[in-house]
């Protein structure tokens, strides 16, 4: 098979998966017990009529799908409902029109709310990923190159510790350390900083990003170092590396021209998987440093049964995971020509 056909097949599968997610997304949250019109409000001032009005406003008074008032099997509704007026149809129709709906809780369009949160998450996770990939690769290569020396043992030990540290705990430790050294403890920017010149605004955001990014980098760097190291040691034991050595190439040349490209495959897989999932936000890091990202948005929305936000966020994550996998597949075909013929 040639590259184009592989590409087309992968894309077709991705689209199919996204469609599946769209349907699943809708039903998944509606089987949760609880009533979105009452969630998050426990107050004797909230009268029955008010709850009823909220239900109408959210469209929850309409049947979920034809014949079912809800997904609770003991609450079968009448079957004579126009399918165009069911919650499911309205959801799909809105989605087709690019509408993610209106958040039940924060009285804002979901798309706007998620865009803001997504941007914050991408900023934090993006920086963390790039740093951890760079340092992870450097340390992994160093460790493999100097295998079975003090450098190797040190790198492996440090990586194992970093990888197994509970993220939350590491975050708290860095929070205490950072606050004593003047780093901000919460948020993405200092209130009022938006009136400063652009350069200072960026500096302010960078200062806010420092601690969460550091936490993220430490945790993921350990994982990448270990994978890079073991994969490279494998490759370095291959016959063709011996041949290269016999030809008198320097270690640097061997790494650069012969070993690295092959050793990258497992790392690419892990990075792709991590990237996809971390769009969901490193929830723990966001919680420790009060970072207003996607992870905390989802956490809040679950507690309030904010269906539109949940549907939108899960769709976003699903698309991100699928895209990351697609990119990983395509990178594979570039890195390993054997994939094309399979």
């Amino acid at each position: 098979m040639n590259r184009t056909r592989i590409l087309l097949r992968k894309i077709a599968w991705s689209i199919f998966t996204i469609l599946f997610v769209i349907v699943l997304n809708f039903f998944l949250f509606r089987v949760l017990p609880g009533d979105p019109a009452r969630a998050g409000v426990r107050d004797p001032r909230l009268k029955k009529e008010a709850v009823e009005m909220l239900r109408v406003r959210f469209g929850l008074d309409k049947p979920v799908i034809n014949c079912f008032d809800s997904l609770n099997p003991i609450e079968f509704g009448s079957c004579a409902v126009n399918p165009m007026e069911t919650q499911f149809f309205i959801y799909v129709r809105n989605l087709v029109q690019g509408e993610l709906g209106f958040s039940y809780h924060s009285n804002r369009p979901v798309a706007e709310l998620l865009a803001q949160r997504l941007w914050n998450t991408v900023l934090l996770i993006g920086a963390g990923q790039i740093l951890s990939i760079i340092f992870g690769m450097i340390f992994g290569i160093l460790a493999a190159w100097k295998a079975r020396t003090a450098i190797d043992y040190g790198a492996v030990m440090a990586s194992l510790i970093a990888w197994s540290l509970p993220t939350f705990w590491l975050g708290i430790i860095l929070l205490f350390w950072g606050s004593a050294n003047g780093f901000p403890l919460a948020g993405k920017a200092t209130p009022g900083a938006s009136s400063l010149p652009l350069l200072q605004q960026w500096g302010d955001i960078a200062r806010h990003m420092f601690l969460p990014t550091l936490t993220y980098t430490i945790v993921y760097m350990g994982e990448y170092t270990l994978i890079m190291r073991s994969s490279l040691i494998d490759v370095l034991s291959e016959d063709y590396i011996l041949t290269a050595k016999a030809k008198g190439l320097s270690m640097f040349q061997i790494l650069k021209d012969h070993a690295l490209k092959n050793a990258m495959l497992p790392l690419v897989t892990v990075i792709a998987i991590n990237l996809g999932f971390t769009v969901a936000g490193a929830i723990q890091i966001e919680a420790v440093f009060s970072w207003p990202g996607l992870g905390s948005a989802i956490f809040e929305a679950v507690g309030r049964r904010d269906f539109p936000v949940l549907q939108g966020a899960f769709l976003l994550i699903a698309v991100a995971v699928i895209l990351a996998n697609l990119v990983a597949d395509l990178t594979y075909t570039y890195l390993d020509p054997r994939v094309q013929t399979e």
Partner: protein
Amino acid sequence: MKQKVLYVIVLVALVLSACGGGGGQAAVVRIGWAGSPDTLNPGMAILVEAYTIFEQVYDSMYELNLDGSFTLSLAESVDVSDDGIVYTFKIRDGVMWHDGQPLTAEDVAFSYNLYKDTPEYPYMNGYYTPYFDSIEATENNEVILTLTEAIPNIESQLVFLYVLPKHIWENEDKLEYENFEMIGSGPFKMAEYVQNEFVRLQANKEHFYTPPKVDEVIFQTFANQDALVQAIKTGQVDMITEMPNTAAAALDEDPNIELVVGAPLAPGVTDIIFNQMDPENCPVDEGGICSGHPALRDRDVRLAMSHATDKQRLIDLVLLGLGEPGLTLIPDGLGVWYNDSIEDFEYDVAKAKEILDNGGYADTNNDGVREMPDGSLPLSFRMNWPSDSINAPRMAELLSQMWGEIGIELELQAVDPDALTAQCCPAFDFDIIIWGWASDPDPSALLYVYTTESIPTGSSETGYSNPVYDELYAKQQVTLDFDARKDIVWEMQRIVHDDVVYIIPFYDANVQAFRTDRFTGWITNEAKVALEDVTSLVVIEPVK
């Protein structure tokens, strides 16, 4: 060489600009809190954080003081007709909106009509405006509010009805308007708002009544309470409105930090709920399941459990001492409405056992758990609590121990709060729940949850039904004489206490802290602790 010079110039410029505009330092109060407003649309808002911001940015007809009393705010005088139906408010002259337009009676009438005519606003029709008949503005800047019947608590009906600028709101969708610019008339104006990050308010030094002495107030959201404590310790914020009780002692030792402990501004109460719903009267149409344990419908069982509850121990171990023993659902923070004359059932395990023995609840099979008089069911109750509660797990463990001593067994289980709402009311699919209520300055809201009328609405958590109580509830709603109404409210609390409808374990104290090296003049000696309240924020000033 040229490049180098340019580089130096840029660098110097950067350093200079970083030093700021010079001149006097603006007095900025930074407040750390754990929440963020849900919306800035006053009709749609539910969270208390939203109301805290409204309080700063908007004015209403009355101001609620920290001692629980009300004073006129936007109106300079009020005239009430003899039958108590028609209220004529004379609006102050010269009040200005933040955008420079004058605030008139027109705006007030517009706002009240907006609240009244929008049933989608969750609290309005049902609770704050049901007695509104008509609202009109007159030419001499008066608002005439006509009620459908005379009510005693007009102040508490009006206090959360924030007055909005007609010239802005009449052009907006009243449901979907996000109101980010938030033009108000209050002592602070909206400068910048990023949901879940911060709210930045600027002082309105021209305010007619209470111009602030500081220049800016920032409310910064912290998702993590440890960070909140760390932030005040390191001086990143000047005041925090909440903290884990475990941090109180450490903060108290800091010479630059002062702790304030007392009743919270928003009256709240923790309660132990017994499902007393008789399956015969189960509200099946509303989704009622009514699976409660029959023993809990017996007052003797509830009374025995009450005698076996060591409230002081709960306060010491759960709240670390930061609370007062509870008595009725009306918390002590509601001031005069709280009936402190009721004598609580004393902690007496022997007496509890005796009550159960006399009721015929004996441990017939010697497994340590008593059975129903007919021997059918053991006194083994499901106990649930919302999984996001910090205090409840510990409370549940302690109660399991305390009630275990009198032969009552508990199955402990935390439940997702929303699932618990579905399980609770009006489904009545539980035995015992540890939960709480938040409420209003007026006692009506909390008293309502005991009424028969509230059973199908989901507000009644117990299924308690008592015609005498129902009658008194209706009566207090229309009793105009303050003392007479207070007596009825006290009597109602006595009835439900005697019937042991709930056990109220304690009233949690609010703990707030502020830095003494930054601002002075915080209001700390009132009945309620609320440093973030506008009454405190307008009087504080920077330490010289």
